[in-house]
C-alpha cells in the first residue's frame, strides 16, 4: 500500500499529463533563457568592447612579430645559429637581402625601432645600412662591416637572435626589470635602469595607505550618518555625495590650488606661524600630494558601503548589550563593529582596486616620487610607443590584482562583502 503511494508521488502529473518535474524544469529553463536574453546586449557590449580588446592587447605583451614578419630571409638563418659562434657569410647575405627589401618597401623604420628597444643605438645602424644596402657586393660580411663596424660585434647578432622570436618573454622580463638573453636566461638590469618593480611596490603601498586612511576617516563619518536623525543625516549625505558627483579632474585641480607652495593651506600655515614665508611645506608634486588627493577622491567609495551596512544594524542590539552591563566600548567593539565588517570589506576592496589603477591624479600631483605604475603604462603607450612593454606591464598588474583578490577571498571571503 505504502509502496504504491510512493510510486504515485514520483509520477505526479500536471493537468496535461506531463510529469511535474519535467514541466517545472522546463519553466525554469524558459525563465533562465529570458533572463539571459535580457542581459545579452550588455554581455555582447562587454565582450566585444571590453574583454576581447583587452585580451587581444595583452597578447602584445608576449607576442611581437615585427622582426619575423619583415626579416624574411634572416629569421630562419638566425634560428639555426647557436648564438656563440662567429656569424657566417650566409647570415650576412640574408641580412643584406632583407635590408634592401625593407628599404624599398619603406618598412625599415618598423624593424629599426623594434631592434632599438633591444639594443640602444641600433636604429641608426639599421636605417643607415639599409640606405647603402643596395650597392653592397659580396662578400657581404666584409662590405657590411665596412659600412658600420657594429655589424662585426657578436652582441648585435645576439640581440637580433633574441628579437627574431615572435613569441617572447622579453617584454615581461623588461616589465620586471630583467633582460632576456640569447641563451634563454634572465638577468637583472643594472641598478640605474631598474624602475618597474619599485613602482609596482610603490603602487601597492600607496593603495594600501589610501585604504587605511579612508577607513580611519570614513568609518566615523559613516557612523554619524547612520545614527543621526534622518533630516540631518540626509543633509550630511549630500556633503559626501557632492564631491562624488564632481569631476575627478576638478577635484584634483582643486587640491593643487589648496596644497601648492603658494596655496591656501601654506598661506594659512604662514599666517599661524607654522611655516615661514621662505620655507613653505612641499605638500604637492610628491607622494604626500598623491596620498592626500587620492584619499579624498576615493573617500565616498569607503563611506557609502559602510553607511549602508550600518543602516541595517538594529539599534536594539547595542541597547541590549548595554542593558546587560557592557561598557560603551565593549558594546561597540563586541556587538556593533563585527556587524559592520561586511561594509568595511566592501569599501576596502572597492577603494583598493580603484586606487591600484589610479592614473590622472598621480599624473597631475605625483611629481617625481608620487607616480604609480599606471603612469608608466601610459608613458609607454603614448610617449615611447612601446606598446608591447605597456601590454606586459598591464598584464603583470592584472595578475597582481587577481592574486590579491584571491587572497582576499581566502582570508575575508568575498561572500562576506555587502554593498547595502
Amino acid at each position, binding site marked *: 500500500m505504502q509502496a504504491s503511494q510512493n510510486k504515485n508521488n514520483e509520477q505526479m502529473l500536471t493537468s496535461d499529463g506531463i510529469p511535474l518535474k519535467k514541466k517545472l524544469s522546463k519553466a525554469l529553463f524558459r525563465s533562465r533563457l529570458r533572463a539571459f536574453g535580457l542581459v545579452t546586449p550588455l554581455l555582447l557590449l562587454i565582450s*566585444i*568592447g571590453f574583454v*576581447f*580588446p583587452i585580451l*587581444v*592587447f595583452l597578447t*602584445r605583451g608576449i607576442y611581437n*612579430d615585427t622582426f619575423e*614578419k619583415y626579416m624574411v630571409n634572416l629569421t630562419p638563418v638566425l634560428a639555426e645559429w647557436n648564438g656563440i659562434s662567429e656569424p657566417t657569410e650566409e647570415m650576412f647575405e640574408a641580412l643584406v637581402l632583407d635590408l634592401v627589401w625593407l628599404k624599398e618597401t*619603406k*618598412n*625599415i*623604420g*618598423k624593424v*629599426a*625601432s623594434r631592434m*632599438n*628597444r633591444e639594443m*640602444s*643605438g*641600433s*636604429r*641608426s645602424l639599421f*636605417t643607415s645600412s639599409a640606405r647603402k644596402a643596395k650597392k653592397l657586393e659580396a662578400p657581404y660580411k666584409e662590405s657590411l662591416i665596412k659600412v658600420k663596424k657594429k655589424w662585426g660585434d657578436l652582441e648585435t647578432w645576439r640581440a637580433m637572435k633574441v628579437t627574431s622570436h615572435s613569441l617572447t618573454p622579453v617584454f615581461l622580463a623588461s616589465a620586471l626589470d630583467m633582460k632576456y638573453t640569447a641563451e634563454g636566461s634572465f638577468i637583472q638590469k643594472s641598478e*640605474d*635602469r*631598474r*624602475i618597474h618593480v*619599485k*613602482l609596482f611596490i*610603490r603602487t601597492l603601498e600607496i593603495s594600501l595607505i589610501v585604504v587605511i586612511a579612508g577607513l580611519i576617516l570614513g568609518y566615523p563619518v559613516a557612523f554619524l550618518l547612520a545614527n543621526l536623525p534622518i533630516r540631518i543625516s540626509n543633509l550630511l549625505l549630500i556633503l559626501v555625495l557632492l564631491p562624488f558627483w564632481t569631476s575627478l579632474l576638478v577635484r584634483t585641480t582643486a587640491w593643487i590650488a589648496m596644497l*601648492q*607652495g*603658494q596655496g591656501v593651506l601654506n598661506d594659512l600655515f604662514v599666517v599661524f606661524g607654522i611655516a615661514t614665508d621662505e620655507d613653505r611645506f612641499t605638500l604637492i*608634486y610628491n607622494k604626500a600630494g598623491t596620498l592626500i588627493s587620492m584619499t579624498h577622491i576615493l573617500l565616498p567609495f569607503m563611506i557609502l558601503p559602510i553607511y549602508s551596512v550600518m543602516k541595517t544594524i538594529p539599534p536594539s542590539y547595542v541597547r541590549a548589550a548595554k542593558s546587560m552591563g557592557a561598557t560603551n566600548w565593549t558594546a561597540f567593539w563586541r556587538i556593533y563593529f563585527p556587524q559592520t565588517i561586511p561594509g568595511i570589506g566592501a569599501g576596502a576592496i572597492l577603494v583598493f582596486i580603484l586606487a591600484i589603477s589610479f592614473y590622472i591624479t598621480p*599624473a597631475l600631483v605625483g*611629481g*617625481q*616620487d608620487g*607616480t604609480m605604475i599606471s603612469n*608608466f603604462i601610459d*608613458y609607454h*603607450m*603614448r*610617449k*615611447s*610607443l*612601446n606598446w608591447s612593454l605597456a601590454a606586459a606591464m598591464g598584464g603583470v598588474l592584472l595578475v597582481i590584482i587577481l592574486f590579491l583578490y584571491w587572497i582576499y577571498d581566502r582570508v575575508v571571503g568575498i561572500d562576506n562583502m555587502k554593498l547595502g
Partner: protein
Amino acid sequence: MKLFKLTFATVSALFVAFGANAESITVVSWGGAYTKSQVEAYHKPWSQKTGNQVVSEDYSGGLAEVKAQVESGNVTWDVVDVELSDALQGCDEGILEEIDHSTLPAAPDGSPATQDFLPGALQDCAVGNIVWSTLYAYDKTKFDTPPTTMADFFDIEKFPGKRGMRKLGKAMLEMALMGDGVPAAEVYDLLGTEEGVQRAFAKLDTIKDHVVWWEAGAQPPQLLADGEVSMTITWNGRIFNAIAQEKQPFGLVWDGQIYDLDLFVIPKGSKNKEAALDFIRFSTDTKRLADQASWIPYGPLRNSSIPLIGTFHSDPSIKMIDHMPTTEVALKNALQNDFEFWADNGEELNERFNAWLAN
C-alpha cells in the same frame, strides 16, 4: 596583428561617432599661444579662401595618437604639427604620407620651394613650419642680479628658489651638461659616452630636490606666474607671450638654448588628404609663415619670409625679429637638437631618466 586591427576597427565603429565630414579638416598642434598664432595666420585665411572648415585640436607631442589612428584604420587627424625627430621616425615607420615638394609654392622672387626653405625643413613626409627653442626663463622680481648663463640655472645658492623642468630626458640632459660648463658643440659627443651621461645625471642631482616637473607647455608660464618656481625651462614663444601680452615680469636667458624644428605632416590614410595638402601648401608659403611670426616669436623656415617679419600683433613697438631663436645673441651658445642621437639613444636615456626620477 590583423586581429588587432579588426578589433580596433569594430570598437571604433561602435563607439566613435562620425568623423569630420569632407568639408572640414582637423589640424592638430600644441595648443596655447602657438595654436593661436596658427589659427590667426593659417586657419582663418585658408577657410576664407577655400570655404573649408578647420577643426583645431591640441596634443602634447609624440606619435602615439597618429600611430593608433593609422593602425586602427580610423584616421581622424589630417594635419599634425610635429617635431623633426617625430617627422623622421614616422616617415621611417610608414605612418605618414609622403609629400611632393615640387607642388609647394615658390618664393615671391621665383626661386623654388626646395631652395627657399632652410636646410632640414623639407623632409620626405614633412614640410617645415617654424624653428623654436627650449630655454629657461626667470621671475625678475625674485633676483637683484639677473641670471645670465645655463650654469646659473643649476646654482641654487646664488639664485634660490624652485626650478621648473620638463619631465623628459630630451633637452634636460643636454642642459645639465651645458650647465656644467660643457660647450654646446661638444654636448652630444659627451652624452654619447657613459661618463657623459653620468656627469649629466650628477648635475641634475644637485637640484633634484628643488625641481617642479612639468609636462604640458602651458604649465611653465603658469608656474612662474604663481610664484611656484623662480626659474623654469620653457619654450621661447610661450614665455614671450606671457611677457608681451600679459605684461608678466619674466626674463629669458638664451645661453644654452636648444633649438628644434616643427613640421607639418599628414597621417597615412587621412580621409581629406587633398584638402590637407592644400592647407599645408597654403600655410607654408612665404606670406603665411611671416604672418604667424607676428603672433609668436617662432622663426619662419623660409628664407623669403624673414624680411617680411613684422611687429607683435597687439603692440607695434615690439619687433618680432629681435625675439627669434635665430638672432645673433640667441645663437651665441646654442645647440641644435640632434634628432638622430635621440632616435638612437632616446629609449635608453629616457628609461634611465625615469629610473633616476623615481629613486
